[in-house]
């Protein structure tokens, strides 16, 4: 089923790395239990389809649900001719959850693309600007098989494709590659690193002495803001709210405690108990949609809802590169389903859900994202300033005009 395409990259990329990464040395792809309909289109022909795992709740049957135990590389034969090894490694890191968080994923993606561009060489009779874009397409569909792309990754990919197609044809290959590497570096620097500095500056104005700040899960941006505020000698304490099954809050807890900030830790079911003590809520975002809805880790909308009921201000911190043109009104249309086995837990030696697959009327739902309506959010802090949720389309329009 694999179609070989003549590609000089195969000699360069070390085949040992691939062999390590692949769990099962299957030469012929194994027959998946459930067959999803084959994609049409040239790029995806080369990328094997990952099969769904387990019973899907009917409301979400339009989404994919993969198991962490069946990584996508099981279906790639050795050698993987079409996909660059750093992309394979990245895909595995995504699917196993080693790289998580929208900023981390985007930065890892851009670094992997830098490696790809470095190893790329234009075949004869082809133009770099067109051919490179075509080369990237199967990588992108492979990555989306490993884990659906985030909005930030989508924007980054759009930017790169635009930059590649803007390379003038008389430019030499080395020069073009250098230029592309520089573009990627400056993108990371401007949109992610400098943006977080700007956001910290604005956000620190909002933190006063004696504050009790509530954060949810692990947002790299919010952690950065709190660490900066602590360094600037603001006196506050933090309450970290966490939820099963990901328990990302523990990572945030470790980082804050290492800095020396006083922290309290609760699970999301204890939210009503802890909220009367809280003075502000800081939330991170995965994406900001064009109708003002905030798409973030599942549970964020609940925190915003209960904070609103207790009249506690909710501030969302988000870089502008995460703004996206999509609109969505609830968490069903486009979401991500994580491995349902994560919900299984053993307490007092008993695992109730152990054989959930055998019971045909039992399903487990492990959602990754949810959307928060704009009336729960009081302020959005971006690198362009502090805006209300409803000004997101204005920012998008301004950005498009700039470009």
């Amino acid at each position, binding site marked *: 089923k694999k179609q070989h395409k003549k590609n000089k990259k195969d000699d360069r990329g070390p085949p040992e790395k691939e062999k390590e990464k692949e769990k099962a040395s299957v030469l012929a792809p194994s027959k998946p239990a459930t067959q999803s309909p084959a994609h049409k289109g040239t790029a995806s022909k080369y990328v094997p389809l990952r099969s769904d795992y387990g019973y899907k*709740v009917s*409301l979400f049957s339009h989404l994919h649900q993969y198991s962490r135990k069946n990584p996508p590389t099981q279906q790639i034969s050795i050698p993987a001719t079409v996909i660059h090894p750093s992309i394979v490694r990245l895909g595995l890191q995504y699917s196993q959850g080693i790289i998580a968080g929208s900023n981390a994923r985007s930065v890892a993606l851009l670094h992997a693309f830098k490696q790809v561009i470095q190893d790329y060489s234009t075949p004869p009779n082809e133009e770099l600007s067109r051919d490179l874009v075509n080369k990237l397409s199967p990588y992108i569909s492979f990555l989306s098989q490993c884990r659906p792309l985030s909005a930030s990754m989508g924007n980054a990919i759009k930017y790169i494709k635009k930059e590649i197609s803007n390379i003038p044809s008389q430019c030499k290959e080395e020069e073009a590659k250098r230029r592309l590497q520089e573009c990627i570096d400056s993108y990371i620097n401007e949109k992610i690193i400098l943006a977080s500095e700007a956001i910290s500056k604005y956000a620190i104005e909002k933190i006063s002495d004696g504050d009790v700040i509530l954060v949810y899960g692990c947002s790299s941006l919010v952690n950065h803001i709190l660490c900066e505020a602590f360094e600037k000698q603001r006196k506050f304490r933090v309450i970290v709210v966490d*939820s*099963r*099954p990901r328990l990302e809050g*523990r990572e945030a*807890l*470790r980082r804050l*405690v290492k800095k020396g900030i006083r*922290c*309290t*830790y*609760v*699970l*999301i*079911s*204890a*939210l*009503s*108990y*802890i909220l009367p003590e809280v003075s502000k809520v800081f939330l991170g975002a995965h994406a900001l949609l064009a109708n003002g809805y905030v798409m973030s*880790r*599942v*549970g964020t*909308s*609940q925190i915003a*809802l*209960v904070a609103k*009921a207790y009249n506690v201000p909710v501030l969302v911190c988000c870089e502008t590169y995460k703004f996206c043109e999509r609109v969505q009104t*609830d*968490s*069903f249309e486009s979401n991500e389903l994580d491995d349902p086995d994560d*919900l299984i*837990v053993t*307490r*007092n030696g008993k695992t*109730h*859900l152990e054989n*959930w697959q055998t*019971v045909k*009327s*039992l*399903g*487990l*739902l*492990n*959602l990754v994202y*949810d*959307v928060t309506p704009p009336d729960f959010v009081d302020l959005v802090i971006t690198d362009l300033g502090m805006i209300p949720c409803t000004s997101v389309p204005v920012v998008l329009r301004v950005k498009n005009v700039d470009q």
Partner: protein
Amino acid sequence: MLHQFWVDLLQDLPRFTETLVKMPGADKETDLSERIESFLSELKRCGSGAGSLRGSAETARETTALLRRITAQARWSNAGDLMEIIRKEGRRMTAAQPSETTVGNMVRRVLKIIREEYARSRGSTEEADQQESLHKLLTSGGSSEDNFRQHFAHLKANIIEAINELLTELEGTTDNISMQALEHIHSNEVIMTIGRSRTVEAFLKDAARKRKFHVMVAECAPFCQGHEMATSLSKEDIETTVIPDAAIFAVMSRVNKVIIGTQTVLANGGLRAVNGTHTLALAAKHHSTPLIVCAPMFKLSPQFPNEEDTFHKFVSPHEVLPFTEGEILSKVNAHCPLFDYVPPELITLFISNIGGNAPSYIYRLMSELYHPEDHEL
């Protein structure tokens, strides 16, 4: 030598037989106090918060059975004495496990029964002692109470019979509630619930015999009792989905009804329920989804929610942040509260063994179950 032994025995025999014959009634008393002590120690032991090791229905039944035994075996000559004894034991029992309010509720029910039986024996109507209306307070002048000091021969038997009726009522509560299930659930509904409640389980299973619907169970960390509930419901072929607590608001827009159980129903119509219920109630209110509480009458308690130090109950924070996170454990505070307060404005309907009621009617039901003077034991 053997001969000497028999001689000694025969000499000691009168004294020996004396010790065998104890005081009449002393046997029963020690037996009674032993039972009370063992009940108290069981109450103290099962407060570890990993869900109740025994359901509240069992606790209510055992409390009532114990009170019946006290009535039968303790020494009392008039109703006032009996009420004193029961109040004393009731105070000890509620002190053993303050969060288990069914114990106190049953004590108050029995006290009310005693008052009623006494009033009936005296021949006066029950309503005369019922409410303290303003009119009565002004016109009665002296106290209408006579301290329950009159002795009646059949009082004991009447009281024990009334307590037996109470026990029968307790045994039928879950069935009475489940019988109303078909009136509230239609086909193709999506129902959400949280944690594990035996009443709601029986309710849903009863409805599933004739209707097809889908249930979403929020697992209620950290004890994850929702898992048990989901497996038990799916065994009856009910379509069940387990969702983590964080996804409650995300899926609420597709839910038609929220049906929950509770630990206690408070005097203002609010609830003391498992943690996470307040979030569920707020999400339901936001989407205008009806919130139905299935609670038997023995959970109704005359407490109000403002007592800060007695409302919340905590268990070891190691459930939330386990000891494996050792490095940070000493530097953070971790909390694991068990209960949430849900205000009555968020509740649509109470379903109890005597039928459906609005939260605004709870005060009236309370006045029928308990006498105002017994609210403080």
